[in-house]
């Protein structure tokens, strides 16, 4: 069994070229949005806007400017499925379509998925959506087909700045930690890793180096598994069912006594 593989995305060197988006679309044969009709977001140079069933990579453009725009900076982040070690989508999928591969990545099998969309609601990062072409839920496969052939995922291969790095998770983490230290020395104290340790969903096999709070990048601070609510929710409902039964019995008895009175 190969060791866990994944992505380390260093957002501080991303130039927003979107080569990863294009490479992903080409390799995975994902159709253009809106049949190729160009739609502009109108408030950002980013027109992809979000990950969905036909956009498995998305370079977010975050423009941080002062009120008079005299001071500001651009943050860019190539977003993708996080391939969580404890994956919410895999946890709730009722058909078994979502599997964990030998590379410790998470893949949705298009021939099994029936499009119930439970995984879309479960993903803490809003990564998954329906691909209208297949009628199934889809997301980044971490190029499972390329990995099986010993190749690098299309996005990582296309990235011209090595913002997206692919490799064994263990190695990537060491590299990322060295980079954070370097950035701190260079005067970027906000640099930090997101999802590189096990406290976040057992670790994200696609983790990030970011230069601000997670929320700025549209990332949840403390993503959680859906089943955190299962026990309490199911217990309350069971108590509720007992109360309904009891109410029915008591009201029925009372009603019969009133009828006899």
């Amino acid at each position, binding site marked *: 069994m190969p060791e866990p593989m994944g992505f380390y995305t260093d957002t501080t060197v991303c130039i927003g070229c979107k080569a990863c988006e294009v490479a992903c679309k080409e390799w995975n044969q994902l159709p253009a949005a809106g049949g190729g009709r160009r739609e502009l977001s109108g408030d*950002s140079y980013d027109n992809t806007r979000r990950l969905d069933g036909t956009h498995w990579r998305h370079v977010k453009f975050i423009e941080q400017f002062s009120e008079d725009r005299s001071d500001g900076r651009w943050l860019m982040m190539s977003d993708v499925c996080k391939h969580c070690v404890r994956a919410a989508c895999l946890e709730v999928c009722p058909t078994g379509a979502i599997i964990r591969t030998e590379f410790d990545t998470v893949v949705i099998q298009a021939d099994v998925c029936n499009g119930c969309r439970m995984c879309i609601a479960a993903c803490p990062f809003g990564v998954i959506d329906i691909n209208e072409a297949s009628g199934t839920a889809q997301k980044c496969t971490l190029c499972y087909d390329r990995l099986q052939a010993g190749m690098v995922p299309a996005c990582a291969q296309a990235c011209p700045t090595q913002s997206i790095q692919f490799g064994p998770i263990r190695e990537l983490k060491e590299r990322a930690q060295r980079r954070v230290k370097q950035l701190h020395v260079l005067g970027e104290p906000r640099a930090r890793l997101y999802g590189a340790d096990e406290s976040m969903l057992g670790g994200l096999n696609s983790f990030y180096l970011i230069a601000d709070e997670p929320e700025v990048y549209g990332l949840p601070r403390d993503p959680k598994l859906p089943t955190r609510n299962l026990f309490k929710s199911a217990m309350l409902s069971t108590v509720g069912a007992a109360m309904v039964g009891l*109410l029915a019995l008591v009201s029925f008895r009372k009603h019969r006594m009133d009828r006899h009175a």
Partner: protein
Amino acid sequence: MPDTFFTASPHWTWWIILYFFVGGIAGGAVMLATLLRVLGKPEDQPIARLGYYLGVAGVAVSGLLLTIDLERPLRFWHMLLQSHTGRPMFKAWAPMSVGAWGLLLFGGFAFLAAAGAAAEEGRLPWPRLRLLAEGTLGRVIGVLASGFGLFIAGYTGVLLAVSNRPIWADSSWLGILFLFSAASTAAAALLLLATRTGHGASAAAAWLARFDRGALVLELLALIAFVVSLGAVGRVLIGFWGVVLLVGVVGLGILTPLLRPEPHVRAARLVLIGGFLLRTVVLLASAPIHAEGSGVTLR
């Protein structure tokens, strides 16, 4: 910002809203029918039979709604059997998986109960099917159908909670809330059906109206607990959906039938409208919420 705001909507809209409504009524109706069957008198039996008919019709509609809501409807059976091996597909910790089996079992027992009821009335060409409604067998079928029916009434709220979406995953009270609402809407639907078939003045119909008031009180309490449990997230309800919740669900659907229970038929209609609106608010208020990283932020 709450962590649930960074997630995407599963596009569960009208089919699912309708399923939550119809499935709840079906589950509750079978429970009420069984109570009338097991503890009631001979004169209560017509309404018990109506409850079973309502249950089996509701479960059939439910299955249909869930299937057409799938992006790939012909693969509905992937919920029950592993498509690669044909072995049973079941995940005890995944509410949709448990729900698929629950609906199948509820449907099966509700069908047996309804078949027994129809045979009892002489509506079927196989009079021996009366056995399904009589004696111990009839009671066992009824009790099992009721158990699965109550499960169907409540698991939908648990399913929403076991996600990461705003409102749904921010509370643990949706399951019990939907369950109480299923009880109140089931009693209302059965009461309307009884009135339409000429049993509106019966003792069982009067009991249904009384039971419904109790269920509405429970529903109101659970609704308050639900809104309180949302905490700061509850602010997303300020606006259109909050007005629908307050005026439609609480005002029209709960308080009016509680304070003005006569005539029964009007009260029952309001309860049904309120129950439908409750599910509409819960699903649609959550749908548009999505925090996006891209864009301009001033600092």
